[in-house]
């Protein structure tokens, strides 16, 4: 079943940069879609246009039966809460405990006054601890989030996204700030929630070796346009130079 569809999506920033140009693709439920491309090719913009962190310039984003680009206010927040997102810089709330950070994923379903006072229900707390168990950080629940290592912080971010009970998880270069072994650990957790919890994943990545290991399908962007769509095994030498340019050399991450 098609979960997400982008039609003629264009994005031009106020400074005149055209980041996305006529992007057409669709995502099936349960896919692990990886978006690759050089820095500045529009990967991050694409993810941010899906959940409307950046408003689109023209075109449409269909999510289930809704047109996300036409939603505003409460309706938009409701749909956003069904789309989790993790970031390259983890973006956890500093000086707050891991548990508070995970509970922040439930903000959309918590009344404002309760969330200001930190009054989460018992079920929400148990759920948060359960998601921390999934990412293997249950014992760190009461530690300050900024005291964790990079890989651990990204796992907390994953737990926070899971707290939203999302249909889709957007991952914006989730391992670009991590070392190789931690990268694999974080990618394995993403794979786990994709396979075991059935959450569809759209992930931006840099390393082709990671793409081949984890992606079920690949989308390549260049200068804001889609230049390749297909299976990860089919990216050969020729496609590689098309996507990354003549001078690129493939490096792998083990």
């Amino acid at each position: 079943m098609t979960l997400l569809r982008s039609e003629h999506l264009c994005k031009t920033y106020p400074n005149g940069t055209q980041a996305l140009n006529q992007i057409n693709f669709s995502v099936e439920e349960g896919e692990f879609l990886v978006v690759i491309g050089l820095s500045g090719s529009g990967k991050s913009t694409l993810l941010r246009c899906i959940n409307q962190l950046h408003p689109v310039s023209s075109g449409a984003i269909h999510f289930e039966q809704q047109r996300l680009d036409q939603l505003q206010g409460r309706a938009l927040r409701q749909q956003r809460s069904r789309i989790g997102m993790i970031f390259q810089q983890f973006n956890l709330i500093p000086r707050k405990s891991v548990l508070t950070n995970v509970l922040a994923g439930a903000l959309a379903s918590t009344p404002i006054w309760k969330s200001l006072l930190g009054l989460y229900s018992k079920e929400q707390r148990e759920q948060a601890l359960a998601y921390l168990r999934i990412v293997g950080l249950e014992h760190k629940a009461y530690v300050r989030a900024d005291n964790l290592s990079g890989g651990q912080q990204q796992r907390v971010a994953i737990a926070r996204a899971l707290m939203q009970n999302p249909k889709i998880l957007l991952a914006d270069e989730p391992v670009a700030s991590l070392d190789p072994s931690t990268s694999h650990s974080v990618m394995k957790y993403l794979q786990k929630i994709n396979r075991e919890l059935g959450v569809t994943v759209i992930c931006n990545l840099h390393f082709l070796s990671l793409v081949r290991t984890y992606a079920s399908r690949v989308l390549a962007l260049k200068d804001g346009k889609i230049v390749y769509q297909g299976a990860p095994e089919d990216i050969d030498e020729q496609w590689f130079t098309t996507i990354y340019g003549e001078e690129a050399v493939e490096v792998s991450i083990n």
Partner: protein
Amino acid sequence: MENTMITKQPLAEAMPVKRYQASIKAWCMDVLLWSYSFLVLYKLGYQSWWLDLRHVDFFWSEPLYSLLVGGLVASVLSYTKASVGKACYGLIAFDEGRSLFRTASVRLGLLFLLLTFIAGLQISQVSMREFFSDSGLAGAQRIFTALLNPNFAIFEDALFAAVETVYMAFIATALAIPVAFVLAFFAARNLMKNSALSFAIYAVLRFLMNLTRSIEPLVWAIIFSVWVGIGPFSGMLALFLHSVASLTKLYSEQIEAIQDGPVEAMTATGAHPIQVIWYGVVPQVVLPYLSYTIYRWDINVRMATVIGLVGGGGIGTMLMQYQGLARWNDVGMLVIVIAAIVWLMDYASAKIRAHLK
């Protein structure tokens, strides 16, 4: 994306229109500098010092004449390299190998500065003769003897007045915190730039806060002492108003300096804007807020002693009364108490702020 090279071009080789504008600005600057110098030379150098006139009359024709003379000199010099304006607007290419002090425009600039310095000495009536005169030294001896022999009989009164001052400063700070906390969000550019309406609110608020801050608490105390009567309440109101303006500025600058990441992450979870601010912004600013607030209390205690001088209550009012009666032994006691409090607050606030980092 197009790769454009941006190189900074010296104005000496820049476009003719830009160069034309710059030379007009440079000329205006030279005219002002020269007319100022002529006016100062004429009034202070010629009339006040050379003719030694007791009372120097002022006519509006004088600045007009200096403007004329200044304009002439500046126009003539604009064809040479001896022009401060041209140097400031980058119309003169500096010779890298030569010392700056050998350049005509720099020497000229220093000359203007020297003139201002001498004029300043003259206007401030700086006089070593007064400072070391016999009657002057005798007066100094009298007041220092009295100050160094403080009257301990009024120690209790001084202490109570000091306590009043500290409490007054505390309540002014405490009441200012919630007001500044709320206003700071509306005065933070990064939160308000998104729509025209919110940006208008931002601009108006910034303007009002700058206006409030630019009026000294001393002046506010005078205004409020007429409004609510002389006493600690008027002093408290003055400090409160000034604290709101200052804290709003400091708080909002802190908000402007936060990392966008947590804000973006909270928005992505579908949180309400209020929740985004509470979870994405507030945790990043609490500690600096606390630090600023304690520092502000410290400042308020110091200001409260001064504000008392104009009827804002506390130890300052007491100081003013004894000073009016020339009871220097009592004043000596008060000065000691004030110094002790200010030192104590300074020490405590520095300690607390060091631990907050």
